[in-house]
């Protein structure tokens, strides 16, 4: 149970960073921390006590495997997270070039 709580705490740190900070790079970092927490949570749900990795060995038959399904889902999510981070960084670089700042409250022309 304490693993779930620590993972939730990590998520809350990311959420705080996204909601509270005004620098765009800090917001990207907060989104990254949230992504880490969600990936970790998926793998934690599939863990089994004294389990083995979901890869078959040559001679012996493995019975106590951990759940391979969340791992397969997270594997695609990690790469998608990288691509999305690159897209946000590109947009942030454009914003810096146009407005000369990373502060989101100074970007007045985005409003309405």
């Amino acid at each position: 149970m304490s693993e779930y709580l620590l993972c939730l705490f990590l998520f809350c740190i990311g959420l705080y960073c996204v909601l509270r900070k005004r620098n765009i790079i800090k917001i990207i970092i907060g989104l990254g921390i949230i992504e880490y927490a969600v990936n970790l949570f998926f793998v934690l749900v599939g863990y089994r006590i004294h389990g083995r990795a979901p890869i078959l060995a040559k001679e012996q038959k493995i019975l106590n495997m951990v759940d391979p399904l969340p791992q397969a889902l997270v594997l695609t999510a990690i790469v998608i997270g990288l691509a999305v981070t690159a897209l946000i960084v590109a947009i942030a670089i454009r914003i810096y070039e146009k407005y000369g700042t990373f502060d989101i409250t100074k970007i007045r022309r985005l409003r309405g």
Partner: protein
Amino acid sequence: MKSKEKGMTLIVKTVTRLTVGLILLYGIYIVLHGHLSPGGGFAGGVIIALSFIHLMLAFGRETALKKLSQARASILESLGAIMFLSIAVLGFLGGYFFLNFLFKGKPFNLFSAGIIPLCNIAISLKVGVGLFTIFVVLVLFKILKEDNE
């Protein structure tokens, strides 16, 4: 900046010349053994992209783009996508989308598991070249900006 040549110092260039081939080889190994051991198309593709990025960071933009130009990169990326999709469509030979229609082979051999190694190669092309393109675009923008100023 005494010399006009691009890139970093001599030490970095020498070490890069020794290691970049090994990194590329390791990426190809990870891709080809994806159905037997940990790894697979995603990790192997990112390692291949990292080898080209390593080359670009050490030697400057021109050397890396000579190895893999942007036009060729876009062709390779589209090739990966089309290959993956055509493997999926070829499943209609036996019945349905994404059917594992090839010969399965014995487990724990390199040539086994039907379409899975081919799909791994397609995904590694897609991921590796796509991430390399993203990096090239981000770096190219910075160089253009510095030339203008």
